[in-house]
């Protein structure tokens, strides 16, 4: 018989850890090899137990789970990461996946899905909700690929505005940085939205942040 999957639980709520452990241990093919409630002890267990899968909560006591996901990805690339979070997937799922997680499960639907997610991620597949997967696919086909090509349509100035938006600057700050009026920045934003087929300012901002993150990730690797 195959050896059991070793799962590491990182969650700051004891009750969740306790019963998640019971649930996982109850499965025939997996076992919990360690628990941690914060990043420090998580790193210790990671070194000692060499788990196959890490289940990470996004809100930990001493740091953001997202950072932990990034460092696990960097130091232990063989460990599959499933994010288990109370937060809505439409806000966080994509960021977690981009940070290196392979699965995202919301706690309110975790009970039945967490075991499936562990299996899927161990098998090397991405595991998010159907809705999320559809939205990813859409972004890849329409949005991102589309956006990528339309980014070429942006003028230098528009690209500059887009980049500053991605860096988290507000309209006023962008106006000051580029030494133009707020109205001008608004006009740039309107044109960017039009060119990238984005309906709202929220979408514009999300797209800009995503693009900026991707740029900086690329820069980090290179």
């Amino acid at each position, binding site marked *: 018989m195959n050896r059991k999957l070793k799962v590491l639980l990182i969650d700051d709520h004891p*009750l969740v850890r*306790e019963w998640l452990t019971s*649930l996982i241990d109850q499965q025939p093919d997996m076992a919990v090899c360690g628990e941690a409630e914060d990043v420090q002890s998580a790193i210790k267990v990671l070194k000692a137990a060499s788990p196959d899968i890490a289940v990470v909560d996004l809100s930990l006591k001493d740091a953001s789970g997202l950072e932990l996901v990034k460092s696990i990805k960097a130091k232990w690339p063989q460990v599959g990461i499933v994010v288990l979070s109370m937060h809505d997937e439409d806000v966080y799922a994509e960021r977690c996946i981009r940070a290196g997680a392979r699965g995202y499960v919301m706690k309110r639907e*975790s009970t039945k899905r967490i075991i499936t997610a562990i299996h899927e991620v161990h098998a090397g597949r991405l595991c998010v909700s159907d809705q999320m997967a559809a939205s990813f696919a859409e972004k890849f086909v329409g949005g991102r690929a589309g956006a990528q090509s339309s980014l070429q349509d942006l003028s230098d100035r528009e690209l500059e505005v887009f980049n500053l938006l991605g860096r988290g600057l*507000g*309209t*006023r700050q962008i106006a*000051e940085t580029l030494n133009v*009026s707020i*109205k001008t920045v608004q006009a740039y934003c309107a044109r960017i939205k039009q060119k990238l087929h984005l309906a709202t300012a929220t979408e514009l901002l999300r797209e800009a942040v995503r693009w900026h993150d991707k740029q900086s990730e690329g820069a980090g690797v290179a």
Partner: protein
Amino acid sequence: MEELAPKVSLIYILSQSVVIRFAKGAVVPGDRMGWSSPSHDERVEQWIGRHSRGQIILACVLATFLVGYVDYLSGPRIVISVVYVVPIAIAALFAGPVPAVGLSILSILVSLVSDVALGLSINALYVPAVNGVLRLLFFLFLVFVLSRLRELQSGLEVRVEERARALALETAERQRLEQEMLEISEREQRRIGQDLHDGLCQHLTGTALASQVLAEKLDAQGRAESEAAHRIVDLVEEAISLARGMAKGLNPVELQADGLMQALEEFTATTTDLFGVTCRFECPTPVLIHSPNTATQLYRIAQEAVGNAVKHGQAKGITVTLEENEDGIRLCVSDDGRGLDKGAAGAKGMGLRIMADRARMIGGRFNVASHWPRGVELSCLIPQGPQMEAH
């Protein structure tokens, strides 16, 4: 005798106008309450105020001598002794009762001297002296009345000022308390929301997992009760969703800078779904708000305004606008409803006041405008200069 007549009438007119002015200045404290702009009474007071008490007394003494001289010039048959009242009244009002009494005595003496100078023999002074004593009594009575009046007036002024100051303090205190109340309620809501999210929801997650463990165990044993256990898992997960919904209502704006944009987008969409109105969110460029309190208060203003439009205004179309312009960050809620009643009272008026309080709390300017023939526009502008956005 003829050449004296114009002089006398001139003196009479002058003295009358002066007496009337001072009498008005002394008797009408109403001007001090701020209903009228500075009148000439106040100008007279200011003019008097620029001179010291000594100067006033000196002027009054000189005036008395002047009147005595005119008394002398006008001859024995014209009695102008009433004019002596003028310097006495001025002294009583602006220099105090003691100089006024002194002046009263002086004016009697001056008038006697003028009588003597006019050729009245010392022996025949009996009648003017008796008249003089009677006049003195009248002057003293006048001095008493005027000083008393002056006292009352200044007392009243002091009291009015005290009251006004107390009222201003009280108003400021009330505003502070209202804002504090809003802050506390917001903080408490956030705390309860946070507790629900971090405490109760996590606890329920643990419970759901525990039920799942039980359900799987029962499954493994082939027991019929497993179905009930699975049902419990579903119920607990529903409870998590409910608690999350409540947490969201209590703490609607996520902490990051674009939290308000997201929250308003979600809120307008929900309003459209729930109330069968068209509630649009317009936000031409990303508006980032780094203070969670500002973001939350703006959200609450939008929430209240949209609620009013739906409930009281029976609006069909509502637009929530969040934008950044040269003046600052502006939130605006406009609708096509019935508009505001004159003197919106009760719950609605209270709602407007709370919105204004919220705006004030975050340093914003709140404005309500009724549009003809339909519709209301509520807006809140948070002024922002280049230096304010620096960090």
